[in-house]
């Protein structure tokens, strides 16, 4: 009940801040305002607030509990992506002045056609990124109210679509910055209090020894919503509601019934849902090679996807527009690195505590719930309930802000880039552009919501990994070569992006169809970046070199991208214009 109230408060607060907060959020004063640009700290908090999604809030801890320490490469990659952004993209992009990714592609490559291609990729990435947000919402509402999974998906999809359509949370920097601090508070406070309450991490042997997860000193009771096949890694037993005890030998798989209480006795071996690898503490704690998920190939592929994919996330890049100049863009990015590093300390703690304190999630297979249920189970009574309410509220803040940002990007792309090309006219006047935007916002939510309904079985982190893989295989080469290489041509960029997109999406869909194969090179179907990114680069370089149609003013474009502000350097045509004036 408290959790439901907290979630409601966060939702209303978010909507309210978006709608009425505009008044506080604008710089208001008598005179001398224009100089007061947003500071780097505010901007960094806003970028982090937009960025930290369900994957960061729920997914990393869930995956860590499931496959062990190798899941933490995700948080490393999610943060390090900003290092790539800082080194290669942030300042030049800000100097260039473009607002969206299609803006940049069209202006840099002098081709209106590539704008449409870039818009299509934005839709693909945004769609893939929205699915896990909605999945997280379905899970969270299920934990809070016990409602079916689809209810949470539908509720958040509708709330976000309405919110974006009526113009709430319209990318206001201060609102997004507030969201970051809310999320940090909501994930940090419960786990810190919990650690104080428990006096440190209990039963550390479960984390590092050769034990499989066991039921703890009190045992536990679970009730499944649907029958679940589960494996006992060692001999164990479970007690059914009618008092019947079922003994299972080590390594055997049983089918646990739905709708009845199943009790695991104290210190009993925990049955582990099929799909989750049973791991001893020492294997669980290995950063590389502990499981098929932690194979070096997959870890490198994931690092490539996240390190290079962050720069291609459409909802993040638009935030850099607010920086006054290239220097400020760099300072902002450095602060983002710090803020994210701070945030990602906490999901790791939830994952580790979850292995010890909430082993029932191994039985249900819903390890993505760990951030939400850990406080309630590990600390009985009111404190646990309150802390769970806080994490639920934080999770909702994560879904709302990230999905709103994504939906704004999707709707903007549909109404601003796709619609005028299809209809061959630019909608005249703000009012009609606004109307198109609203229709687009409602429409863009439909497909991700439907996909979220069927994607229940896929881990949030893996879903998000796909969005990063596609971004890394398309926009990353376009940005890196577009910013640092004069010879890139429009056809080269288009060919590279199409190849990168084709390889990554094909791999993902084949992997889905084969049911997430693990082991060996087939694992690349789950995270194809290590193949698709180099392929995109090679095609982009090769086609550009053989393309006779070079971009005529590439040198002037380089000047616009790289010359620091305040040098008074200008493009040649502007120079000519100035001479005439």
């Amino acid at each position, binding site marked *: 009940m408290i959790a439901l109230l907290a979630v409601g408060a966060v939702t209303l607060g978010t909507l309210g801040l978006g709608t009425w907060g505009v008044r506080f959020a*604008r710089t*208001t004063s008598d005179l*001398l305002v224009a100089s007061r640009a*947003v500071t780097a700290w505010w901007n960094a908090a806003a970028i982090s607030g937009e960025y930290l999604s369900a994957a960061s809030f729920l997914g990393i801890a869930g995956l860590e509990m499931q496959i062990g320490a190798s899941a933490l490469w995700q948080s490393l990659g999610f943060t390090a992506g900003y290092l790539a952004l800082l080194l290669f993209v942030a300042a030049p992009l800000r100097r260039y002045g473009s607002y969206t990714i299609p803006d940049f592609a069209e*202006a840099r490559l002098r081709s209106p056609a590539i704008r449409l291609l870039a818009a299509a990729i934005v839709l693909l990435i945004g769609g893939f990124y929205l699915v896990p947000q909605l999945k997280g919402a379905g899970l969270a509402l299920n934990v809070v109210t016990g409602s079916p999974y689809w209810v949470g998906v539908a509720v958040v999809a509708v709330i976000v679509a309405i919110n974006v359509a009526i113009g709430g949370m319209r990318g206001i920097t201060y609102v997004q910055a507030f969201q970051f601090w809310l999320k940090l508070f909501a994930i940090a406070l419960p786990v810190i209090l919990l650690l104080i309450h428990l006096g440190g991490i209990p039963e550390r042997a479960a984390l590092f020894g050769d034990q499989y997860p066991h039921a703890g000193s009190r045992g536990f009771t679970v009730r499944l919503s649907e029958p679940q096949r589960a494996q006992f890694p060692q001999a164990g037993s479970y007690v059914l509601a009618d008092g019947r005890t079922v003994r299972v030998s080590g390594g055997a798989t049983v089918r646990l019934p739905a709708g009845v209480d199943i009790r695991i006795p104290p210190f009993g071996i925990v049955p582990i849902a099929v799909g989750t690898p049973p791991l001893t503490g020492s294997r669980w704690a290995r950063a590389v090679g502990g499981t098929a998920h932690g194979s070096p190939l997959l870890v490198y592929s994931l690092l490539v996807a996240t390190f290079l994919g962050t720069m291609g996330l459409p909802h993040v890049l638009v935030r850099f527009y607010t920086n006054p100049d290239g220097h400020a863009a760099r300072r902002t990015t450095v602060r983002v690195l710090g803020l994210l590093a701070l945030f990602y300390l906490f999901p790791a703690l939830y994952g580790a505590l979850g292995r010890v304190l909430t082993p029932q999630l191994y039985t249900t297979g819903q390890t993505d719930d760990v951030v939400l249920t850990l406080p309630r189970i590990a600390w009985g009574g009111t404190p646990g309930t309150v802390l769970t309410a806080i994490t639920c509220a934080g999770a909702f803040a994560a879904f709302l802000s990230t999905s709103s940002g994504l939906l704004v990007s999707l709707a903007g792309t549909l109404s*601003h880039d796709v619609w005028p090309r299809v209809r061959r006219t630019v909608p005249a006047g703000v009012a009609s552009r*606004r109307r198109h935007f609203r229709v687009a916002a409602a429409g863009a939510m439909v497909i991700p919501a439907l*996909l979220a309904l069927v994607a229940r079985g896929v881990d949030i982190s893996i879903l998000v990994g796909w969005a990063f893989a596609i971004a890394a295989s398309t926009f990353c080469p376009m940005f890196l070569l577009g910013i640092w290489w004069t010879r890139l041509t429009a056809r080269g960029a288009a060919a590279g992006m199409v190849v990168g997109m084709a390889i990554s999406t094909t791999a993902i869909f084949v992997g889905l169809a084969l049911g997430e194969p693990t082991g060996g090179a087939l694992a690349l179907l789950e995270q194809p970046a290590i193949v698709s990114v180099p392929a995109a680069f090679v095609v982009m370089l090769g086609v550009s070199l053989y393309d006779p149609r070079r971009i005529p003013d590439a040198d002037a474009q380089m000047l616009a991208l790289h010359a620091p502000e305040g040098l008074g350097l200008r493009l040649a045509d*502007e120079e000519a214009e100035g001479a005439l004036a």
Partner: protein
Amino acid sequence: MEFLLGVLVGWAVAASAFAALRLLRPPRVISGEVRAMQTSLHAATVMLPDLRRGLSEESARKVLPHLRTLTQAAAVALGDQSHILAFEGAGHDHHQAGAELIPVSAPAREDRLHVESQIHCDHPGCPLGAAVAAPLVVGGELAGSFVALYTRGRRITPDDTRTVAEAASLISAQLELKTVDEQAERIARAELRALRAQISPHFIYNALAAIAGYIHSNPEEARELLTEFAEFTRYAFRGQRPYVTLADELHYVERYLRLERARFGERLQVRLEVAPEVLQAVVPVLSVQPLVENAVRHGVEKRGEGRIEIVGRHIDADVELRVTDNGVGMEPQRAREVLAGRGGGVGIVNVQSRLQSTFGPGYGLEIESAPERGTTVTMTLPKFRAGVRAA
């Protein structure tokens, strides 16, 4: 997972079925004449955007294939006054861009079509025979020529010459449009120059008079105001930059308002409320200050006091800036006339024309006003437009 796979396979099957149906549908039968007309109409329209950019090697290369379809000649060429810009069709192995136009065909004279029954070509095995060269006349001057070449032994019919002449006049008309575009741009630039020169003498007089009033009572303030004034004029007269960031332009507006405040004191109330997210948008230089100056002149000066609000918001990919006064206002009819350039000052019209020539239709100014209800001028612009960069 099976469900997802099912959905995907379903989509793929439906899409393939749809595509197959479209491909299998028998093509509609149209008569040869209609088809010929459609082909030539298509060829003619496809050329237009390229020609609009002027006569260059690149544009010539792009339009020639279409010109060849249009004229049904064995080869076609476009040249400037003396050289071939591009060549397309039979004999392209030895007739190439950059060569003198003469071996292909004597350059067309200014006013008439030139028909040659056999071109002079030393290249053995040149398949070309007769040629028709038509002049391209732009603004009364010869800009180049269009040459259609036919295979050896083919006689030129009156239909051929007429087609070539028509094609040449189509090209000329498009090139003519390009010079019109250039002229419009030149006019916009001239207007900007005029606006720079036209800081209203009225304002200069008032500002200096107000500063003079402070010299004895508050010399410190007077000195500061004079510095502001110097900075103000420097911004306005600084040439060589058609675009600035909105932040720069608002700085300038602040200077302007401080000088006006020296004169009006507390009788001029100002509120600036600009979302920090829009400060980096790029606007034509001197596009906001004239709006504010208008608000001061018509909203404040006439009544001796007043209130001005400048509000900037971002709406998706657009920036909206409103300048509101609570002055005497005007009839909505008159507001429309002012914006259309009939009556009223040049300032607003000038800003409007520069905004629209920079960002295209759909952006620019709107005026809302009613007598005694004040006036609101709303400026909309995109957050980014390729090629528009602040200096």
